[in-house]
C-alpha cells in the first residue's frame, strides 16, 4: 500500500500524517460524563453512542451521504450487539451504505478508532469517517458460571427426560449464581488499582502527591466548566424514558474541591499500606464521544475549517506483569519521533488520568534519563512536562472515564485549547489494560 512519505526526520515505518496529506478532525462532541448508575442508568453504551453520533452529525451539518466509514468502540462488551459501530450507523438514520467496524483497545479504544480511520483515509480507502467510543458501567453484561453455561447448551441438545435430569444433576447451587465482569488483568489477576499501587511504590509516589494531583484535576475541570470551555464540546442529553431532565454537565467534577478532604479517604485497594483512594482515581463512568474526521482535501471541498489535524500516532506494549500503566512513557517518544517533534515543541500535553499515581509515575519516567536508557534504549530523557501545559482542563480523575469515550474526549479538548492558544502542537497519551500505551501528536495551524 502506498503510504505517504513523511518528512526527513521521520523514522522508517512510522505512522505519520505528512504535511501533503493530513487527516483533519472537523468536529467533535461528547455527552456529559456521569457517575455509574446515575443520570444514564437507563441507557446502554449503544444508546449513548447513538445519541452523541446523531447530534454530532446534526451539529456539523454534514450531508450523511459523504460519510463512508464509522469506527467505534466500547470496552465493556455488549452481548446483544457485538459490532457497536454498525449499530450506531443503523440506529441513527444514517445511510446504511456506511461501512462500520468496532475496535477495542481498553482505555485507549477511541484512540484506536481514530487511528484506524486515519489509516483508512490516508490510504484512500475511505474519505469521511465518524469515530469514537462509548461505555456504560451501569449496563454491564452479567454472565453465568461456565458449568451452568455448559449445562444449558447440553440441555438444549438433550432429547429424553432422563438425559435432561442427568445434566441438571451436574449442577450445584453455587453454579447458579450470576457472574459479574471483573476489572482484572486476565493474565495476571491483578486489579488496576493494585497495579497503580505497585507503580506508586516503584516510583516513590506518595499519598500527598497523588491527592494534590487529584485536587488539581478537579479544580481545573471545575474552572473549565465555569468558564464555558466545554460548552462547544459537550452536548445536552435528555435521557429517556421521560426525557424530562436534561443532563448538561459532567456530574463527577467537584466544584468545591478542598485538598484536605482527599486525605480523609481510606485506601481502596491496599487498605493498610496503600495510597490509592477513590478520590485520586478515575471513577466508573457512563458516557460517549465522537469525532468527525476526513482528509484535509475533503474538508476543504466541503467547506469545513478543521479543528485541527492528526500529525502522528504510536502505540506501545509492555509486560502487564511489570508496571501495567506505563504506556504513555513508552508510546509518547515514538509518536513524537514520527512527528519529527520533541516534547519541548508541545504547547499542550494531555495524559489520561486512570490514577493520579499513574500520571505522576509516567511524568517521572519521561523526565528520567535512566528510564530512557534502560527501557527505551534512548540516550536522553524525553523531557520534563511543564505543569502549565499538562491536562490544563483537568482529566479523567475529575471528568470521569467512560473507558472507550476518553480518547476522543482528550483529542477534542486538546484541539480546541490549541486553537484558543493560537495554534501549535499537542500530545495526547493514554495507558490501557494489558500493558498498552497510545500517543497522538495533534496540530493546529498557527
Amino acid at each position, binding site marked *: 500500500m502506498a503510504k505517504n512519505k513523511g518528512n526527513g526526520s521521520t523514522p522508517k515505518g512510522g505512522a505519520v500524517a505528512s504535511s501533503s496529506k493530513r487527516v483533519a478532525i472537523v468536529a467533535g462532541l461528547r455527552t456529559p460524563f456521569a457517575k455509574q448508575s446515575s443520570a444514564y442508568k437507563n441507557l446502554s453504551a449503544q444508546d449513548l453512542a447513538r445519541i452523541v453520533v446523531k*447530534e454530532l452529525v*446534526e451539529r456539523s451539518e454534514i450531508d450523511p451521504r459523504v460519510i463512508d466509514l464509522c469506527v467505534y468502540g466500547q470496552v465493556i462488551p455488549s452481548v446483544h450487539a457485538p459490532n457497536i459501530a454498525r449499530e450506531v450507523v443503523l*440506529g441513527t438514520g444514517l445511510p446504511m451504505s456506511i461501512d462500520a467496524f468496532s475496535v477495542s483497545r481498553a482505555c485507549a479504544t477511541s484512540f484506536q478508532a481514530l487511528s484506524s480511520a486515519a489509516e483508512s483515509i490516508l490510504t484512500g480507502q475511505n474519505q469521511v469517517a465518524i469515530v469514537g467510543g462509548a461505555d456504560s458501567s451501569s449496563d454491564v453484561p452479567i454472565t453465568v458460571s461456565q458449568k451452568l453455561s455448559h449445562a444449558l447448551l447440553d440441555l438444549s441438545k438433550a432429547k429424553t427426560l432422563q438425559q435432561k435430569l442427568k445434566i441438571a444433576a451436574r449442577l450445584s447451587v453455587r453454579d447458579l449464581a450470576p457472574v459479574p465482569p471483573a476489572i482484572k488483568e486476565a493474565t495476571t489477576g491483578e486489579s488496576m488499582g493494585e497495579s497503580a499501587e505497585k507503580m506508586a511504590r516503584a516510583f516513590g509516589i506518595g499519598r500527598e502527591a497523588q491527592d494534590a494531583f487529584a485536587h488539581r484535576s478537579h479544580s481545573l475541570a471545575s474552572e473549565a466548566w465555569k468558564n464555558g470551555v466545554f460548552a462547544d464540546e459537550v452536548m*445536552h442529553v435528555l435521557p429517556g424514558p421521560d426525557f*424530562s431532565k436534561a443532563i*448538561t454537565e459532567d456530574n463527577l467534577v467537584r466544584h468545591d474541591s478542598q485538598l484536605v478532604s482527599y486525605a480523609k479517604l481510606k485506601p481502596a485497594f491496599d487498605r493498610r499500606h496503600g495510597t490509592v483512594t477513590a478520590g485520586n482515581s478515575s471513577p466508573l463512568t457512563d458516557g460517549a464521544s465522537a469525532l468527525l474526521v476526513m482528509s484535509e482535501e475533503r474538508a476543504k471541498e466541503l467547506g469545513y475549517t478543521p479543528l485541527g489535524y492528526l500529525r502522528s500516532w504510536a502505540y506501545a506494549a509492555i509486560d502487564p506483569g511489570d508496571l501495567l500503566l506505563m504506556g504513555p512513557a513508552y508510546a509518547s517518544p515514538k509518536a513524537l519521533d514520527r512527528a519529527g517533534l520533541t516534547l519541548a515543541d508541545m504547547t499542550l500535553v494531555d495524559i489520561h488520568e486512570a490514577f493520579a499515581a499513574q500520571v505522576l509515575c509516567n511524568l517521572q519516567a519521561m523526565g528520567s534519563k535512566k528510564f530512557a536508557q534502560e527501557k527505551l534504549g534512548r540516550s536522553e530523557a524525553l523531557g520534563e512536562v511543564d505543569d502549565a501545559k499538562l491536562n490544563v482542563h483537568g482529566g479523567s480523575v475529575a471528568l470521569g472515564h467512560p473507558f472507550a469515550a476518553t480518547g476522543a474526549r482528550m483529542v477534542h479538548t486538546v484541539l480546541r485549547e490549541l486553537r484558543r492558544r493560537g495554534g501549535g502542537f499537542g500530545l495526547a497519551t493514554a495507558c490501557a489494560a494489558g500493558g498498552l500505551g497510545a500517543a497522538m501528536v495533534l496540530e493546529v495551524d498557527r
Partner: protein
Amino acid sequence: MNETSTQTTTNEPQTVTYVLRPDGVALITLDAPGSSVNTIGEAFGRELEAAFETIAADDTVVAAVIVSAKKDFVVGADIDLISSMASPADARDKSKQLATALHGLRRKPTVAAVHGQALGGGFELALACSAIVASDDPRTAVGFPEVQLGLLPGANGLLRAADRVGLAGALDLGLTGRNVRAKKAKSMGLIDDVCPEAVLLEVAAQRAKRLAEPGKKAPKKALSTKLERLALEKNPVGRALLFKKARSEAMKKSRGNYPAIEHILSVLETYGAKGWDAAAELEAQRFGELVFTPASRALVSIFRGQTALKKDSGGTSRDPLPVERLALVGGGLMGAGIAFTSIGQGIDVRIKDRDDAGVGRGLAHVRKLLDQRVKRKRLSRFDAAKRWGFVSGSSDYTGFARTDVVIEAVFEDLELKQRVLAEVEAVTKPSAIFASNTSSLPIARIAEHAKRPDRVVGMHYFSPVEKMPLLEVVRTEHTADEVVATAVALGKKQGKTVIVVNDGVGFYTTRILAPYLNEAAHLLAEGVAIEVIDDALMAWGWPVGPMQLIDEVGIDVGAHVGEITEQAFGERMRPPPAMAKVLADDRKGRKNGRGFYLYEKGKRQGVDTSIYPLVGVTPDTELEVQEIQLRASLAFVNEALRAFGDGIVCSPRDGDIGAVFGLGFPPFRGGPFRYVDAEGAGKVLARLKAYEQRFGARFTPAPILEEYAAQGRKFYPEG
C-alpha cells in the same frame, strides 16, 4: 416445461387468464389490463365464470390456484360499476350474477393465493375458494370495507366469513370494515395458511392438490370454537342475545344514519335463523337498495374525492422537491405528532424548541407514540428503534442548514411566527421551505417580512396529527408552485389526504368551524342544555358535539382563534358575550379539567352545571331537535359556501373532503356541498333566510347559494 396455455375465447386483453401446470394445477392469474390494481368490474364475473367452465370441463385439470399479478390481490368492486347501476333491481341482479360466478369456483379444488390486499369483492372471491393461503407481507390484509361506502358485501362474503369465524366474527368484520392482517386472519381462522411470498404460489398449489386427493375434506374446527358457537349462535335464544347486543352497540355509534349497518345485521341474522338461501336472497335485495341510498351515494362521493386527491399534486404541474430532512420549530403535541408521522417515512426530523424541557416533551411524545404502537403490535420493536433513530432535538437552530422543509408549530401569535420565520430564513438554505402550522393566521401576514416569500406556505395539520387524516395546504399569491407540490407530496407521504386552499384568515377549515361553534354557544346562551346541544348534533351525524369539541380544542384556544376570525369577518363570527365569562372563569376545557364538562383524572364526566349560572341562564329552554341541528350545521355549511365563493377552497370536492376529514362533518351527508345538492339549494336558502330574520346577519346566506338556488345549479352537476 410442457405447459398448456389456455386462453378463453376472445382476443381482447382479459383480467382472468390461466395456464395449466404439468402437475395438473391450473394457475389462474388476475391482471386487469391497463390498471395498477385489480377491481371487480363488469366483465370480471363473466371472465371468471368462463375460465371455470373450461376448467371444470377439462379432465387434465386437477385443481386450481388464483393469484394476482398486481401488488394487491383484488382491492374490491369497481366504484364505476356501482355508480353505473341503473336501479335497485339492476344492482340486485349484478350482485347475484357475481355471487353465482363465485359459487362455481369450488367445482374443482381452488386455492386463493393472496398477496397484498384482498378487500370487499376481492375477499369474497378468496372466501369462495376452497382454501385461502396468504403471504406474510405486512401489507397483506383481508376485510370488508363496504360498510364505509354505505354498502354490504354483495357476493355472499359475509355468509362465508360466518362459516369460518362464526356470526359474531362476521358481524365484527362487516360492521367495522376493518382490515385484518394475514397473521391475525390465520389465527382467527379466517384464512388457512400464511407463508412467505416467495413460496406462496407453491404452497397454494400443493394445498390445492392435496384437496383434490380422494377423501380429503376441509380440516375440522377446534372444539372450543365449536362449543362457543353452539352456546351463542346455534340456538335461537343465544342468537337473539348476540344480535340484540350488536344492534344496540352499532346504533349507539351510527345513530341510525347508516342503513348498511342494519342490513348487515339482518343478513347475518337471517343466515343464522333460516340458512343460506334466505340470507343470500336478502343480501342481494338489500345490496340493491343500499346502492341507491343517499348515504351510500355520499360516501362513494367522498371515496372518489379521496381517490382523486391521491393523484392530485396540488393543482400544480411542478414536481415536488425531495424532502429528506424536516425540522419542526415547537415540540408540542402538534410538532411531535408531525415528527412521528414523518420518521416512519425515513425522513430525518429535527425538533427545535425554546429549551431542553420543551425538546424533552417533544421527544417524549414521539417515544410514547412509538411505544404505543409496539404495545399494540402495530410496529415491531426493531422498526420502532429504527424510526427513533430518525429524530433528534435541540434548543438551538443547529441541524437546520441542510433542512428541506421547516414547519413551525409555535403559539398562535403573529409576531412570534414572523420572528421564527426570520430566524429560520437566516439558518436555512435558499431552497428551504418554511411552512406554518397556524390554524387561523393568514400565511401572507406571517410572510410579510420574509426574504423569500415564494418559499412560504401553510401546512395546517389537525390534532392529534397521528390520527387525523387531513392536511390543509395553504398557498399565498407568492407561494411557488414547486413549494405547494412539495408540501402536498410531504403530506401524502405522512399518510394524509391533502387539500390545497388559498390564503385567508382561517383558510377553509378554521373559518367554517368558527360559526358552527359560535352557534352552539348561542344556543347555550339561550338556555339550551349543553348535553341537549351535543346530543342533537351527534344525532345529526357529528362525531362529537360542539360543546365537547370546544373542550377538546381548548376554550382559550377557541377564543383566541375566534378573535382572529371575528376581526376579519365581523359580526357573523362574533361569539355570544357569555363566552367571555366562561373564559374569564379560567375554563380551558379538558387540558385544565375545567370546561363545559367535568373531568376526573382526565376522563370526561357529566356536564358541569355550574356553567349555567356563570352564563346567566337556566338550562330549560326547549327547542326542536331539528332547530338545534340545523342552526349549528347550516352556519357551518353556509360559511363553507362563502369560502368557495371567495375562492378560498378551489372545488366542492376539496370543500367536502376538508369538512369531513378535517372537522368530522357527517360523512354520510358527503360534506357541505354534497349536502346542499341533496337538500336542494333553494330549500337550504329558504331555511337560512328564515334564520336570518330571526337571528340576524350571522345567517345571511352566502351569495353563491343565492346564485345556485336562482339558477337551479348543483355543485356536482354530474350527480
